[in-house]
């Protein structure tokens, strides 16, 4: 009986591959979790693309108010970009530290990530406060509504990410590098890097194109 299966498998290698694949069993939990979170991140990017589309459509609708070129301060934007990029790098260092299970380096890298994230948020908050003080708040024109929605939504994501970051620091401190904590951290790292990707689109489309035009 086994001899017959062996020969039939030998004759048809594709069948053998199928057989093999069927008996592999479910993927490890780390892959399933990471993949599921990746799907969520992509749906988040689809949501951001709606805000980008709204912003692009409403770009000219300034209702006689100020446009992008007179409102945006590119020096601030460059600072924000630097903060977020460096914090993404620090987050990468934290992933390496988590994999080699070094508590000290993990906490240092996460603290750096957090400080840089908070620096980004404070620059952005000051920018928003300044715009509102100059009478260019979200209710001034459709253009400004779209601007505050898009950039503010990214800022909200960063704020939420910072809370998550502090939670991860506390959980690793209290529970160590358990498999479930490692999975949560994998998701956090994906989230933080994805936010940086969205920021690339924001500073290019909103600020650089807005000031160039």
């Amino acid at each position, binding site marked *: 009986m086994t001899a017959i299966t062996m020969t039939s498998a*030998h004759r048809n290698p594709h069948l*053998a591959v199928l057989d093999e694949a069927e008996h592999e069993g479910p993927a490890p939990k780390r892959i399933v979790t990471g993949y599921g979170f990746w799907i969520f991140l992509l749906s988040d*990017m689809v949501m951001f*693309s709606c805000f980008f589309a709204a912003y692009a459509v409403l770009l000219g609708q300034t209702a006689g108010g100020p446009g992008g070129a007179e409102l945006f301060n590119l020096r601030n934007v*460059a600072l924000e970009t630097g903060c977020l990029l460096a914090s993404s790098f620090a987050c990468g260092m934290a992933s390496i530290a988590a994999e080699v299970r070094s508590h000290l380096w993990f906490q240092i890298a996460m603290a750096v990530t957090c400080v840089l994230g908070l620096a980004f948020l404070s620059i952005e908050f000051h920018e928003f406060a300044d715009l509102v003080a100059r009478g260019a708040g979200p209710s001034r024109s459709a253009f400004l509504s779209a601007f505050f929605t898009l950039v503010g939504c990214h800022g909200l994501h960063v704020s939420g990410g910072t809370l998550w970051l502090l939670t991860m620091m506390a959980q690793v401190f209290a529970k160590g590098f358990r498999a479930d904590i490692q999975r949560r951290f994998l998701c956090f790292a994906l989230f933080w890097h994805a936010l940086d990707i969205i920021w690339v689109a924001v500073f290019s489309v909103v600020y650089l194109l807005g000031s160039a035009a």
Partner: protein
Amino acid sequence: MSDVDLHREPDLAPGDEKDVSVKFRVLGYLTGLALAILLTATSFFVAGTDLVWQPSIPVAIIVLAIAQMGVHLVFFLHITTGSDNTNNVMALAFGLLIVFLVIGGSLWIMANLSHNMMPMDQLMQMQR
């Protein structure tokens, strides 16, 4: 039996790297950081310069942004073209399709609408 498929690589979670030493991982992140800084600096420079033909600036900024997103995907999120990453890449491709449909479709439809719409002051005149 052929043993080619017995050594099929297991899949990788998005964000995970193949087993390489810590030194090479740090090096990977440093490469990504250097490329990202280079691309960011270029796009900030291009946005404010008079040295290039002005109508090319928006296109250059968009191209640089897409390049930088690619750098982030490869060096920070470790989404690669390897066979262990097929699922992650397919999901990304579907996400990109939707993103382009939403942005491209909205711009196209709204530009068409505003092209065909009467200027607002004429519309006001007619309503009087």
